[in-house]
């Protein structure tokens, strides 16, 4: 690229209003993976690198391992990898597989969607697969059930390729200015006829499932040899794909923790945080969430060691009888009942070998 071209692109970016914080995507470089890798994935959910959702149609097709992989193009440390481990070459009509990343409406107001001044946006990413062919990526407006999409081509098997897609602005349907789900960028990887029988929505339209994967000429689930990898994901205002905006690990982690946190690790020497509560055999712990999460998170507890999970000093080691969570965007409360009621009411309680997950994903 010539210097003149680079200066022209820089000017375009300035006109579009963002020299920094251009990239609206969180964890575009796949550097954060709090959940770790997952095997045997068949249903919708969040697996592998933070902020990327394995999304299905009425049902998924095939079984997958989803991981943070160190194979990445130059300048990147990681990629998101989905690897087919059980094939299904004949998807039912309503089966589909998408990878998606989701956005709050209050973070999208710069797009001026639903106004006469609606801005175009450009999606760029690096992608690699053994499956050459035509794929499809969409912007799916979930506030107004509208969609626009485009195809892209993977030309060479097993080689990182850089793709850019510019989508026109939408003068219809404003995004809600709040913390709710408004938009998802989705990459179609497999689909039955309910998702492939339409036409690629090359301009904004009312969402039809039949259009969401209409441009696909491949099916990720048709062989256990198949994989698809992505990194360097950037969504920015304007019609120019600028170089990927790298952020520090700490910056990216903080952004991810607005949506998901692992509050404790399974280390043997975790510090205790459970303390005596008002009733016998009931212990309440509290963890502050700072900065606060997007919404009150769903809480879950995983015991890495079921025996000796609880220690009452000078009394006994014990197991957990029950655990309940109460949460807000600002804190997580966890109430624990040990299996043994000692009738004691003035002791602290230590926990070992556990993970607490707080999930406020969109």
């Amino acid at each position: 690229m010539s210097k003149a071209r680079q200066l022209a692109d820089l000017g375009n970016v300035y006109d579009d209003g963002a020299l920094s914080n251009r990239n609206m995507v969180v964890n575009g470089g796949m550097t954060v993976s709090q959940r770790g890798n997952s095997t045997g994935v068949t249903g919708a959910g969040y697996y592998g690198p933070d902020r990327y959702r394995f999304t299905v149609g009425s049902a998924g097709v095939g079984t997958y391992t989803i991981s943070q992989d160190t194979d990445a193009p130059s300048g990147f440390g990681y990629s998101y990898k989905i690897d087919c481990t059980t094939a299904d070459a004949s998807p039912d009509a309503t089966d589909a597989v998408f990878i998606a990343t989701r956005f709050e409406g209050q973070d999208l107001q710069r797009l001026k969607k639903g106004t006469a001044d609606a801005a175009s946006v450009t999606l760029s990413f690096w992608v690699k697969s053994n499956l050459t062919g035509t794929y499809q990526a969409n912007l799916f407006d979930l506030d107004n059930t509208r969609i626009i999409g485009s195809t892209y081509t993977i030309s060479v098997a097993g080689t990182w390729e850089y793709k850019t897609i510019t989508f026109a602005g939408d003068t219809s349907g404003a995004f809600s200015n709040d913390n709710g789900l408004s938009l998802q960028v989705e990459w179609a990887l497999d689909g039955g006829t309910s998702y492939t029988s339409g036409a690629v929505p090359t301009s904004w339209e009312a969402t039809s499932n039949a259009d969401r994967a209409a441009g696909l000429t491949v099916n990720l689930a048709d062989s256990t040899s198949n994989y698809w990898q992505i990194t360097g994901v950037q969504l920015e205002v304007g019609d120019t794909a600028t170089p990927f905006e790298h952020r520090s690990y700490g910056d990216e982690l903080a952004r991810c923790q607005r949506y998901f946190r692992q509050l404790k690790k399974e280390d043997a020497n975790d510090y205790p945080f459970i303390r005596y509560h008002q009733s016998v055999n009931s212990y309440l712990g509290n963890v502050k969430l700072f900065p606060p999460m997007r919404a009150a998170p769903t809480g879950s507890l995983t015991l890495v060691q079921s025996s000796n999970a609880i220690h009452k000093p000078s009394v006994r080691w014990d197991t957990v009888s029950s655990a309940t969570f109460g949460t807000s965007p600002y804190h997580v409360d966890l109430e624990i009942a040990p299996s043994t009621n000692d009738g004691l009411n003035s002791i602290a309680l230590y926990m070992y070998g556990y993970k607490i997950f707080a999930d406020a994903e969109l």
Partner: protein
Amino acid sequence: MRSYDMNEMTITSAQYVSVGLVENASIRATIDGQELFVPLDPANRHYAEIMRQVEAGTLTIQEAE
């Protein structure tokens, strides 16, 4: 319309629970085979789906014990 693709959770049980002194602090639910504690926050996607299924008549939230 934010419920377009939310019908992706299998919820097999739901019951209000108290935490500390707070009654009905959250809902203990089995979602996709996992025990989760869901806050009563409409912005939480699990709660939104629980309420969608309740309104559809396919799920009942049990009272706290």
